[in-house]
């Protein structure tokens, strides 16, 4: 192996940390000007396999900008529980990664620090809000990164950048010391080069949860819905990947994605807007126009509607587990139902089609956050433009180990996750 930075996280643990650091720094020098994944580098990275994290995990005495102008120079007075756990497990932390402003955007645009760009094609979005995490791992600048997922923010960058990302069960990983967006939906999860590498990071941040071998994985899928609603290249890749895992998957009626997404938005908008109320009164001009508009949208959500939707969550989860999963272990669908769009199409100058494209981007991720269940995104091919395609596997609460084992089974049968952007 000529470049240690291209090893898996599991393999890298047997290489001297200084060699890994040198190799990662060489790649950062080459890639950072092209993709803008890092916001800042730590002078002292610490020993161990190099990681870096979305700039919303606080470290006492250090700036945590949350991708915003408002917190550009804000210094945290506590260290996030997840960073403490990664430090204790012996990982190095190279720096702070780019992200959507306050984690409130699905594309990776950031007008305060510059857009993060997709290593497979810098004209395309990385997905957000953990944009730097997705780009840095895909370009092999670090061996893994933490992201947060409130409506898709781990899975969208994993899908768009061709890496593996795990949205954990709500409550599985401690949120202390991480920037809140919508506490009823917020989760923290790893982005890495494979399901196996995600499992190593999950063990460190959430406690022991080893990969579980399962002789026969039972997949539930809604093939006809996917063929009707996803773009053809996406549908073909996802259906083929699902067949690789289970030759005879159970065909089921899909969950009502759009209604569940609407419930998720009611909760997210109300909670995020409450979280930002003081700054929205005092310094609204310091938000980007897109984030300000999203925040404005939460202030007229009726309290009764918000609470009614939260009351419904139990019934919705029970129905998903009983009727969609049924006897199956996981439900398979695309991570993103459309091909990865460009930054221009989804940015401020995106024109009339922009809102529709943003809705398409998050259509298959938000419903998962409302239910609180875990979901894994793994690469399952490339489209005709050379951009990644992804499979999403959704499981029962606390079934992360099973999802990761399913991801590993797919990655033992395919090599999509080994491809590196040139």
């Amino acid at each position: 192996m000529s470049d240690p930075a291209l090893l898996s996280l599991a393999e890298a643990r047997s290489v001297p940390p200084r060699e890994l650091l040198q190799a990662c720094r060489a790649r950062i020098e080459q890639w950072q000007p092209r993709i803008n994944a890092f916001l800042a580098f730590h002078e002292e990275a610490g020993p161990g396999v190099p990681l870096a994290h979305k700039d919303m995990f606080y470290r006492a005495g250090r700036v945590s900008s949350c991708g915003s102008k408002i917190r550009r120079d804000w210094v945290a007075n506590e260290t996030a529980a997840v960073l403490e756990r990664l430090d204790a497990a012996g990982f190095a932390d190279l720096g702070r990664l780019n992200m959507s402003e306050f984690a409130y955007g699905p594309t990776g645009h950031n007008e305060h620090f510059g857009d993060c760009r997709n290593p497979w094609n810098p004209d395309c979005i990385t997905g957000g809000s953990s944009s730097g995490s997705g780009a840095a791992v895909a370009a092999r600048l670090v061996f893994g990164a933490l992201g947060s997922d409130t409506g898709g923010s781990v899975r969208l960058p994993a899908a768009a950048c061709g890496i593996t990302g795990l949205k954990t069960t709500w409550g599985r990983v401690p949120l202390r010391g991480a920037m809140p967006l919508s506490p009823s939906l917020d989760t923290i999860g790893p982005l890495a080069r494979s399901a196996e590498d995600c499992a190593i990071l999950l063990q460190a941040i959430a406690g022991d949860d080893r990969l579980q071998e399962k002789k026969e994985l039972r997949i539930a899928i809604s093939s006809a819905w996917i063929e009707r609603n996803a773009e053809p290249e996406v549908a073909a890749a996802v259906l083929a990947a699902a067949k690789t895992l289970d030759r005879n998957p159970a065909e089921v009626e899909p969950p009502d994605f759009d209604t569940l997404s609407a419930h998720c938005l009611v909760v997210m908008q109300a909670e995020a807007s409450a979280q930002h109320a003081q700054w929205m009164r005092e310094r609204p001009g310091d938000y980007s126009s897109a984030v300000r508009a999203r925040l404005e949208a939460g202030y007229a959500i009726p309290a009764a509607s918000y609470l009614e939707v939260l009351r419904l969550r139990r019934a919705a989860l029970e129905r998903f587990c009983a009727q969609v999963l049924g006897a199956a272990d996981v439900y398979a669908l695309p991570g993103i139902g459309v091909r990865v769009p460009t930054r221009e199409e989804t940015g401020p100058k995106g024109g009339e089609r922009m809102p529709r494209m943003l809705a398409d981007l998050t259509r298959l991720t938000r419903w998962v956050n409302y239910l609180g269940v875990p979901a894994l995104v793994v690469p399952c091919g490339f489209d005709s433009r050379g951009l990644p395609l992804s499979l999403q596997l959704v499981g029962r609460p606390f079934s992360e180990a099973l999802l990761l084992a399913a991801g590993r089974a797919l990655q033992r049968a395919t090599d999509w996750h080994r491809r590196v952007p040139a």
Partner: protein
Amino acid sequence: MTTSKQWSAEAVEVVLAAQGIALAPGRAERLARGYQALLEASAADPLLARPEFDAVPAGFLLAMQKCR
């Protein structure tokens, strides 16, 4: 059967102003349309008839354990 009333731009402006949130010109109208669509989509869920009177949001935590 009752039909829901339409959100108006004026109503949105009043609700946000009462909370000290200023809106850029023209925003209230877009927000009103967005609220209407979102709340209608959410309220259309037939499952809304299912939770019993005594159901509370915290019941979700019990369901997560039960469904694992």
